[in-house]
C-alpha cells in the first residue's frame, strides 16, 4: 500500500485512510491529511512551532484526541500546520512539534470546515509490514 493519506467517502462526510511504515508516520500523515481537508497546505509557511503532548486510553482514542487537537489549533487558535514531527509515540501518549502559521485569509486558501473527529469505523493497526489508520470526520 502506498504510504501517505487518502480521502475516503462516507454518505455525509469524509474520512482519511493512512498508511505508513510506523505509528509515528501514520499519526503524522493523519494530521497532514486532516489539515489538507480544511485548507490548501501548499500556502502554509513554517513560521511558528508548537509542542503538543496528548494522552489517550488506547491507540484509537489517541488518534481521535491527536486529530481533535490539530482541529482545535485551527478553529480555536487559528493555527494551520504545514509540518509535523512526532518526537515520541506510544499507544497512550504522543509528543510532537507542529510547525505552521497563524491564519491569514489573504494568503491561505480554505476548503471545508471540519466539525469533529469521530469514532465511526475508526481503526489503527500495527502490522509487521507497516501501520494503517482510518478515521472519519464530521463535516
Amino acid at each position, binding site marked *: 500500500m502506498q504510504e501517505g493519506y487518502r480521502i475516503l467517502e462516507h*454518505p455525509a462526510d*469524509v474520512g482519511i485512510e493512512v498508511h505508513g511504515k510506523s505509528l509515528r508516520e501514520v499519526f503524522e500523515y493523519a494530521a497532514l491529511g486532516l489539515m489538507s481537508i480544511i*485548507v490548501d497546505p501548499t500556502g502554509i509557511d513554517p513560521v511558528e512551532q508548537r509542542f503538543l503532548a496528548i494522552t489517550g*486510553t488506547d491507540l484509537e482514542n489517541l488518534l481521535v484526541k491527536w486529530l481533535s487537537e490539530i482541529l482545535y489549533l485551527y478553529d480555536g487558535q487559528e493555527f494551520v500546520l504545514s509540518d509535523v514531527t512526532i518526537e515520541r509515540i506510544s499507544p497512550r501518549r504522543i509528543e510532537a512539534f507542529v510547525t505552521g502559521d497563524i491564519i491569514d485569509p489573504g494568503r491561505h486558501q*480554505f476548503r*471545508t470546515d471540519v466539525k*469533529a473527529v469521530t*469514532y465511526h469505523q475508526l481503526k489503527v493497526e500495527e502490522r509487521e509490514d507497516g501501520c494503517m489508520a482510518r478515521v472519519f470526520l464530521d*463535516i
Partner: protein
Amino acid sequence: MLTKLDDYRFIVPKSFRDGMNVEGLIYADDELIKAIEHDQTVMQVANVATLPGLVGRSLAMPDAHQGYGFAIGGVAAADLNKGVVSAGGVGFDINCGVRLLATGYTLEEVKPKLDALLNQMFRDIPCGTGKKGLLGGLDARSLDEVLELGAHWAVRNGYGTEHDLEHIEETGKIPNANAGHVSRRAKERGHDQLGTLGSGNHFAEVQYVAELFDGEASRTFGLRPGQIVVLLHTGSRGLGHQVCTDYLEVMQAAMKKYNITIVDRQLACVPIRSPEGENYLAAMAAAANFAFANRQLITHRVREAFARVMGKQDVRIVYDVCHNIAKFEEHTVEGEQKRVLVHRKGATRAFPSHRPEIPKDYYEVGQPVLIPGSMGTCSYVLVGTERAMAETFGSSCHGAGRSKSRTAARKDITADRLILELEQKGIHVRGASKSGLTEENPRAYKDVSRVVDVVHRAGIARKVAKLVPIGVIKG
C-alpha cells in the same frame, strides 16, 4: 430482516442484532427503504436499541442515512431513572436547526431586486470556512451570557424583538444551561463565530410560497401564495462541535464506573441522573443557546439587507426548530404520562395543537415543522400531529437526507455547470466555495418531496406549504 408493518413503516425486530432492548421502527416507503438499507442506517438504528433504559422504539425518519453512532434521522427516548444520555445521540452540531422568516414582500416585488438583495446578504452574513462572526470576538462574560440566555441575549442587545422569541423552539433559550460546563477550548472555538453560517450543508435561501396544502395552518403561520420567505440553516458552530468532542471523552471514561457497555464507541453514554450526564446536558443546553443566538444575529442581518434593498425590513420569524438536541419532555409511554429525555439526531420536534410548548398564536393548529430541501429544489412547512405524539415522541423528519458522499457529489457536476443549471431554473447562487457548492448539489440528496410525502401519509406531520428557492447563499 426488516418486517413491513404497513406502506410507511418497517420494524427492526429485536432479533436483528444481539443486545437490542427495544425494537427499531423506520419510516419509509418501498423506494426510500432501499436507500436506507444501502448503508449502515438499519444497523445504527439497531445499535441505538441496545442502549440502556430506552422507552418505546429506536426510530428513524424517512430521510435517515448513516451517521456516527446514531443514524442521521434517528430518534430515541430514555427513561429518566434507568436511561442514558448520549453526546453522539445529539451529534456534533448541537442545535443545528432551521429558521423560517416570512416577509411582507411578494415574488413580483423582490424579483427585480433579487441580485442586489443576495449581494447584500452575502456581504453581510459571514459564510464559508474561516469567517469571523458579526460581533468579532466576544469577551468571556458576554459569551457566557450568550450561552445561558441564547436568543434572549441577542434580543436584549437590540437584535430582534419579544415577538421573535415567542416563535422559537424553547423561546430560543434552553433552561438549565451552564456556561461553566463548557470548556475553555469550546469557548475559544466559538467566541468569534457568533453570527456565522459556516460551511457544509448550511445555507440561507430566499424562497417564495409556491403551494399551500392546508388553509387554516398556513393562515395561522401567516403564509400566502407568492410571498417571499427566507430559510436559514445553521447551528452552534465550533463551540457546539467541541462540546460534543469533550463530552464523548468524558462519557467514554465514565462508562466503566456505571457498568455500561456499548456496541459502537460513538454511542458513549452515561446515566441521565449522573454528574457527567447532568454536566453534559447543561453544556449541551449552552451550546444550543449559542445556536439560537447565532440564528438570531443572522436574522438581524437579513432584516438589514431587506431594509436596505427593499426599503423596509418587514421580516418576521415564523418558527425556529432544532434538528440535533436532547430534550426533557412529557410523553405517554405504555399508557402512562411520563417525563423522558428525547434524543433527536437529525429530526424535528413535531408537536400538535394544544401543547403548552408551542407559540400561543399557533396553539389551535400545532407547531410548524420546517423541512429544508436540497439546494435549488424546494422546502416544506409541515405541522405537528397527535399521531407523532403517539408514535415518535412528537418527532418528524429534518430534510431530504444525503444519498451520495461529498466526493461522489463533486464528480456529478462542475460548479460552473451547476450555477448555470440553477440560473436556468431562476435560482441565483452566491457561494463561498466552488467545491462546497458541488458537494451540496441536489443529485447528492434524496427527493425531499418523497420524504415529506411519507411523513404526511404516515401521519407524523401534515403538509402545510411548499417553498421554492429563488436565491441561495451557501457557505
